[in-house]
């Protein structure tokens, strides 16, 4: 009976992933995944609910209610922090279980290895994720440490082997400590704009920790579900790295963009006013908006929607060009835009929209910088050379809404800003857009 429930659960998980492939069916995917989870957890009780004391049930109910509360309260702009936190919880839970299993002295040696592996990955994910959350909230600056590089990559791995042979609780606790410190150091050296990679990577690790916990307790459904999470995280990690033309190792090494080079501009940019932008926009036929982290920081998404409505009412075509690493996590911009009811069919990926820029009248760059820097195509010495960018400089007119000429994450100047077809509107993303919308009433 239990086996059949588990089989249904596993099939439902995979079916859910299949449904997740399209925005129109994805909400059903979530329902099936929930059902699969409920069946899997139910089966673990093996129809014997009396084995568990009140502390057990109280913990489940209280943390479940807390989960409901969090899910209702969280703002869409806080999604990167929430996913980061949940990565940490997932890793921490698997790591803790592995530690408890290690206290069982009759564990076969192969399971001891797996348990230590799960413990190291889980604890690393836990502390690393908490640091990532602090970084996302802007509470922690980068720090570079050379010692950290050697320490946090190799030490936990080296420790696994002697620890498994020695089987000593004290040693296990020491490994936990090392893994926790390794997580802190590893994430602390990585800059904020690399967080999409870090979050995706930790997401993957939380799945791998769960998968290995499944090996210890001999639960196939736990292995399958953990493997699915691990695979999902790996895919996103590689996508994010590819979108920056960097390797995972390079990102994890940290310190990117800390050396400021070639930060001077040959000439002054052409600066413009909200009134002029409104006039130009009203004569355009096609407009592409490129949102970046600046839009999230300024909480400008509802103002973006307002502008979109204004333009669409004038029969101007509006599209959104979203770079894979825009924002602080994969898909961050899409969620913010969906929140304000912007149709997902108006959101385009880099591959889909790049060929259209040459026929676009106006591109509005909103708090994005490195992802539209043409040096990625032209300057072989640039740190972002080879990174796929949105070719906005091919459009007839580019308007960049940005507070200053300060460089982006990569620490380099963006020649787009002084291009002949580019104008700068120096403003906060939200205020700038509000002024443009107001000016429309006068046009």
């Amino acid at each position, binding site marked *: 009976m239990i086996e059949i429930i588990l089989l249904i659960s596993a099939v439902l998980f995979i079916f859910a*992933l*299949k449904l*997740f*492939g*399209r*925005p*129109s069916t*994805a*909400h059903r995917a979530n329902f099936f*995944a*929930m059902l699969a989870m409920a069946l*899997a*957890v139910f089966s*673990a*009780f093996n129809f014997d609910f009396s*084995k*568990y004391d009140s502390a057990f049930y109280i*913990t*489940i109910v209280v943390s479940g209610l807390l*989960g*409901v509360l*969090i*899910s209702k309260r*969280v703002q869409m702009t806080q*999604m990167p922090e929430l*996913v980061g936190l*949940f990565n940490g*919880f*997932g890793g*921490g*839970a*698997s790591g*803790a*279980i592995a*530690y*408890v*299993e290690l206290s069982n002295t009759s564990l076969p040696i192969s399971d001891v290895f797996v348990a230590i592996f799960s413990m190291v990955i889980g604890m690393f994910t836990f502390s690393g994720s908490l640091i990532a959350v602090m970084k996302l909230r802007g509470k922690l600056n980068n720090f570079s440490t050379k010692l950290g590089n050697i320490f946090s990559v190799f030490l936990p791995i080296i420790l696994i082997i002697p620890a498994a042979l020695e089987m000593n609780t004290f040693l296990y606790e020491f490994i936990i400590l090392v893994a926790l410190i390794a997580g802190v150091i590893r994430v602390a050296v990585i800059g904020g704009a690399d967080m999409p990679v870090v979050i*995706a990577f930790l997401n993957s690790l*939380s799945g791998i920790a*769960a998968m290995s916990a499944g090996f210890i*307790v001999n639960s196939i*459904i*736990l*292995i*399958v579900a*953990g493997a*699915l999470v*691990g695979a*999902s995280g790996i895919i*996103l990690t590689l996508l994010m790295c590819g979108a920056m033309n960097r390797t995972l190792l390079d990102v994890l090494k940290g310190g990117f963009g800390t050396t400021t080079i070639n930060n001077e501009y040959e000439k002054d940019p052409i600066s413009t006013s909200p009134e002029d932008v409104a006039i130009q926009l009203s004569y355009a036929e096609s407009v592409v908006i490129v949102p970046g982290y600046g839009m999230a920081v300024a909480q400008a998404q509802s103002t973006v929607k307002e502008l979109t409505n204004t333009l669409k009412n004038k029969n101007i075509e509006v599209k959104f060009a979203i770079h894979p690493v825009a924002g602080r*996590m*994969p*898909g*961050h911009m*899409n969620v913010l835009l*969906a929140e304000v009811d912007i149709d*997902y*069919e108006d*959101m385009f*990926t880099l591959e889909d929209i790049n060929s259209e820029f040459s026929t676009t009248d106006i591109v509005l760059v909103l708090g994005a910088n490195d992802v539209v820097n043409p040096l990625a195509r032209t300057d072989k010495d640039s740190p972002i050379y080879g990174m796929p960018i949105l070719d906005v400089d091919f459009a007839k007119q580019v308007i960049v809404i940005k507070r200053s000429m300060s460089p982006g994450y990569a620490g380099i100047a963006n020649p787009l800003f002084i291009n002949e077809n580019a104008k700068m509107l120096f403003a906060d993303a939200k205020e700038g857009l509000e002024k443009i919308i107001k000016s429309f009433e006068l046009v």
Partner: protein
Amino acid sequence: MEATFLLTLLITFLASFIGYELISKIPQTLHTPLMSGSNAISGITLIAAVLIYPEVGGSQILQIIVLIAIAFATLNIVGGFLVTGRILGMFKKND
């Protein structure tokens, strides 16, 4: 024993492969809910906690550690699925 282990390894490999194939097809627009959804699924480690909880009755410290794991995993499952549902609802109403 050997055969079971190999079979488990095979299942792991197949699950990873299917996961990789299906998830590769998920569009960029859904990457955030994909991550919050996989947060929820990573909470499946609750199963391991449920399985070992009755065995650690002898040690209070171990019991507390398992309870912490249960709290984390339950938070992930409940919070993760509900948040994912909220996000996907925003995409759904655009149809």
